[in-house]
């Protein structure tokens, strides 16, 4: 976490994360990724490179994927933020993209997974029925060091099936 110098001004900021308001006092330089993890206490958003390249910190800002490590928390006060914690169904069961990752082995260590899940959730809203190429394109801005991406691409297509209501039992 950023060390706050005694003289540094603190700002009162209201973040709206997964529908809930959080009032936090932070310096202006607090990255959104750090504010979510340390000030709000939601550690699902992961921090890999901290300069926009890896995609692990991707969250949804008013429904659109953005890098949390390239935003200052103060700059998005009052806007709707969705983190990986907000992707589960209201009853706590896995959301469709999460379920697809589980079924298709779309994760190994899981470090990159939150960024993929948020990116794909928004991507499937724009393109509910992606081809395999489009599925790859959808995740091309996210890095994974474990899976080799094959099962992530499969998870995208499976998530699309689940969202489009093509039954749970049709997986071979």
């Amino acid at each position, binding site marked *: 976490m950023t060390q706050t110098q005694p003289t540094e001004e603190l700002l009162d900021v209201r973040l709206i994360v997964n529908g809930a308001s959080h009032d936090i006092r932070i310096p*202006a330089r607090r990255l959104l990724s750090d504010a979510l993890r340390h000030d709000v206490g939601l550690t699902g958003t992961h921090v890999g490179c901290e*300069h*926009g390249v890896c995609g692990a910190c*991707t969250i949804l800002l008013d429904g659109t994927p*953005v890098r949390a*490590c*390239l*935003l*200052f928390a103060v700059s998005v006060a009052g806007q709707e933020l969705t983190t990986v914690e907000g992707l589960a169904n209201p009853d706590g069961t896995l959301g469709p993209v999460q379920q697809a990752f589980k079924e298709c082995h779309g994760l190994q260590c899981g470090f990159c997974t939150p960024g993929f899940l948020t990116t794909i959730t928004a991507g499937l809203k724009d393109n509910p029925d992606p081809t395999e190429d489009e599925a790859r394109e959808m995740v091309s801005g996210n890095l994974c060091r474990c899976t080799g991406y094959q099962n992530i691409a499969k998870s995208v297509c499976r998530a699309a099936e689940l969202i489009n209501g093509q039954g749970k039992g049709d997986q071979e």
Partner: protein
Amino acid sequence: MKPAPFAYTRPTTIEEALIALASDPYAKVLAGGQSLVPLLSMRLAAPALLVDINGLAELETIHVSEAGEGVVRIGALARHAAVEADEDVRRVQPLISNALKLVAHPTIRNRGTTVGSIVHADASAEMPAVLMLLDGSVTVRSVDGERTIGVHDLFVGPLESSLAPNEIAVSAQFPALAEGTGVACDEVARRHGDYALCGVAAVVGVDGAGAVTSARAAYWSMGDVPVAVDLTEAFVGGRLSDEHLAAAAELALPHLEATEDIHATADYRAQLARVLTRRVVRAAYDDAVARRETNS
């Protein structure tokens, strides 16, 4: 790493923003932050004050005018993604949307601004070179008033534009596609979405008989600033063959600065410039011919 401390303000009118920016010689504008935040986090920059322009809805506009020569005017807060998706922009100057597809990844384009990318003046970036090729301009404002800077006076050196520290760029103007011309662009990058090792955009004019009347290309990642080169004289008699395209590439090379870094040797970069010049000029020619056919 984390940014050094800075003061922060988020004005709601451009006038307030200009006053804030003028109040501190070490103030900086924060637009999409997709270039600035990494620089702050790596402590390559440590401004005293950040003036966040994301609250200035008036700068979000994208305006297309088809009167006269036609122009696309992109407001300073228009995100790359919004410009790329704009149908009017695509129709009036298709090179803008074509080139934006090469800028970073969609997630970065959701936040980064096209005007921010231009005034950031990265010679590896696509949009400064496109503005250079099309002979566009940037309009800036300060507490002292407004001025428009032609693209040839805009790029001073690596990551350096001719904006004064107290100026905010409010819009960039890209001239429309002229009748009888076509455009294309392409680049080679280590990975899709990365900054290119070499990139080329071209505008080619053709007459009714299919002869080349003009050919210009612009290059990124080939020096400290984007470079535009007139290649018309390579197409002797207006003809376009593999030999003419190869001659055009040789004509461009002396204007380019192929440098060596960890990603590519200078020779390899020069070779990419040759290959991409041939490929992109031909594609722009084909585009011009296709547009003539659909218009007639």
